């Protein structure tokens, strides 16, 4: 018994790594009603990676993304292009040619502009979540991931509907609790929220004592445990990906710290993301670890439905919505 059938317990929908895709975010917010879930958890890497300028030239607005050129003239056309940019995980920005040139030349100005647009988008998403979820009884947990800057945390904490429990513990249902950590171990990309393994281990181990019972807890840790099958990513060498015979050489890139804390604390469930192509589930001891993977660039929300009864996992299912 679980999910849509009788005698249901507590049901949670988890997704991660939507990287600015508004389509995925809208699906995430709607997932509560769709799956009849009690709680929604978005486990980090919510912000996108690129600004797409709409450059005003000859009375028209020109943009290029996904390998195609877009030209908009009317307000409706501009709105349509902006929507398409957002749906694909990018941020639209209308600008004059001289502004565009300025941002190209000046890294500081460019960074400020990017941060401003990303923050504005996060605030917009929070508004959407508040509008759609207020009064529904569905709780919405969102935390930042290694690709999200610190200001994302601040924005999330201002909401009275969206809950961000980074570095802390939250009570869910009965004795079921959840801890949250959006940091990752070091990556070759020097992303905004990374820690060395010992530091990451200490960070998580500082949270665990706040739990009533670690064995009845969910560990929402953005980075998956090392060598778990949830963390297979392309091997990198000299800044490039190693391929052999048209095939990518994969290697485990998860966190040894996360693996260690899971092996020691043996929580009920580990919810992870970070490695988009490593959609998988794995039992580490008694702990069920899940990485639903990510296909944000196609507007597909990959996620996991998990139902609980008492202090047990009743069932789990990977979905692609």
């Amino acid at each position, binding site marked *: 018994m679980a999910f849509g059938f009788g005698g249901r317990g507590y049901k949670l929908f988890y997704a991660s790594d939507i990287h600015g895709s508004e389509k995925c975010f809208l699906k995430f917010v709607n997932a509560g009603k769709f799956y009849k879930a009690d709680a929604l958890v978005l486990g980090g890497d919510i912000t996108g990676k690129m600004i797409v300028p709409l450059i005003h030239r000859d009375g028209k607005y020109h943009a290029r993304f996904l390998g195609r050129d877009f030209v908009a003239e009317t307000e409706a056309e501009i709105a349509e292009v902006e929507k398409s940019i957002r749906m694909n995980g990018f941020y639209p920005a209308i600008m004059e040619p001289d502004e565009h040139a300025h941002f190209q030349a000046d890294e500081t100005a460019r960074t400020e502009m990017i941060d401003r647009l990303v923050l504005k988008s996060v605030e917009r998403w929070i508004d959407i979540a508040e509008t759609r979820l207020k009064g529904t009884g569905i709780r919405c947990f969102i935390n930042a991931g290694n690709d999200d800057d610190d200001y994302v945390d601040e924005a999330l904490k201002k909401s009275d509907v969206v809950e961000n429990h980074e570095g802390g513990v939250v009570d869910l249902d009965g004795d079921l609790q959840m801890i949250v950590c959006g940091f990752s171990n070091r990556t070759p990309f020097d992303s905004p929220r990374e820690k060395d393994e010992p530091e990451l281990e200490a960070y998580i181990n500082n949270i665990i004592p706040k739990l009533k019972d670690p064995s009845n807890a969910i560990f929402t840790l953005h980075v998956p445990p090392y060598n778990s099958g949830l963390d297979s990513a392309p091997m990198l060498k000299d800044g490039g990906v190693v391929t052999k015979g048209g095939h990518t050489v994969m290697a485990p890139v998860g966190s040894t710290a996360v693996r260690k804390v899971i092996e020691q604390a043996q929580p009920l469930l580990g919810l992870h993301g970070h490695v988009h192509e490593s959609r998988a589930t794995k039992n580490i001891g008694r702990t069920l670890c899940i990485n639903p993977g990510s296909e944000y660039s196609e507007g597909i929300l990959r996620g996991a439905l998990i139902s609980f009864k008492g202090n047990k996992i009743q069932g789990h299912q990977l979905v692609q*919505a």
Partner: protein
Amino acid sequence: MSVNFARKATGLVRQAGAKDVFVYNVNFINIAIGVAFMFLFMPNGSYPGENIYLSTILCTLFVLPTSLVYAMFASAMPRSGGEYVYVSRAMSPLFGFVASWNYTIWCFFYIGVPAAFLGKYGISALFRELGVNLGSPAMTTYGDWFNTPFGTAMTGSILIIAFAAVFIFGVSLYMKIQNFTFVLASIGLAFTALVLFHHTPADAVTHFNSYANQFTGSKDTYSDIVKNLGSGAVTEVPFNLKQTLISMTWPFTVLGFSIASAYIGGEIKGANRSQLIGMPGSLLYSAFWLLLVSFVTLHAFGYDFLGNLGAVNPTAVKLAFTPTFSELAAALTGHLWLVIVIGVSFALWTYAWLPIYILTATRNLLAWALDGLLPAKVSEVNESTHSPLFAILFSSILGIGFLWLYAYDSAFSTISGFFGQVCGTFILTSIAAIVFPYTQKDMFEGSPVAWRVGGIPLLSILGVLSLIGMVTIAWAFLNDPQSGISFSAPFMIYVNAGVFLSGFIFFYGAKFIQARQGIDINLAFMEIPPE
């Protein structure tokens, strides 16, 4: 020029480029086996009036739209899984699964078949070539053993077990082996073509007789062949378009499969360009090589000789088994090193499908397991080797089973399985291409292949052309007296239909079992409305 601005964040997840896609697909297409099949089966009188070159060119034109459909789908949905992803999203998860199921079941079969080719066509010929050149009748006899059902099945079983072990230790090891053997096999094929180019029927037949004399004991084996055939001896007859179209089944056995990279679509960097270049590019490149090697083979031996050699029962003239174009090339040279290069390189080509079918089948099993259509155990990845142990073993055991079936049951020693892949998978994918721009309008419009011709999506147009191409190929299979599948001998039609229809039964069975445990499989694929 508009320049977009990137944030500092974790980077690309896609890696293989156009060149990688090209190599992967060319390896899977398997040029040498294609030429071997063409000369073993096309000129033997079964298709009076056929033209080998035109058949190859027409086949290329008929499969090109399918190759482009897969390439455009891979561009629009750069994910691993091939038609499982494309058809699921364009039509429904049920049809996506059935298309994938059908392809995967035939994958298991074609893990076994190329394993059989190693003994049947590769090692047997290599031993005979060495036996003749070293003056060792014993080696020739060993070669004959590899061509027997037992020898074929045993050799193939060892090969599958060896590849299973390689995959268990990781794809990386396989790729090292593949890169090395692919280069060696390609160089060997070039040498083979060069040897053939330097001969004409005037001297080639003499060389063949001298070569065959070592094991047939006859000074003029070719005359024995012609005498044995009697009135059935092959002579060139005027061109016949229908027979040329029917004989496309043979080049199709290799050219129909320029799509291997669709199954690793999630790993392709710049999927739009890479797949659009890599898939049709590998098809056109391979077609060129098929034509080139066909030309030099015909140039060396002539149509009548190759036809009679293909038509005769080899044991009736003490040949034990019919030489392929590769062995004929080896017969033309007296240089032992060249004989070794030709023989070894051809042996390396014979099984090239095998590992890629293991990879494809394993990946499909993993995807089904993650979607709840197979037990979760199937998707488990071994921590020591980082490989899906259970899925590899399962695929390999089934492959060995099909190998023995192929070796001992003549009904399966045919190319009729390709018919199933055409009808159950490629035709479904063609239909999916037609409807995709309409059923997934947003995804199509947002994709880099949202091209239109006269207002109609190019993908839909190619879908129609692909459908026409695949129906034509299916028609050729049903009319080909050597394909092993026809309405007059319908056993393999039933087998093909059974494989396809069992996909529906399996899907609903899995759905029923999961529902009893509270899991609604439909949820795995249902799209949440974003608005």
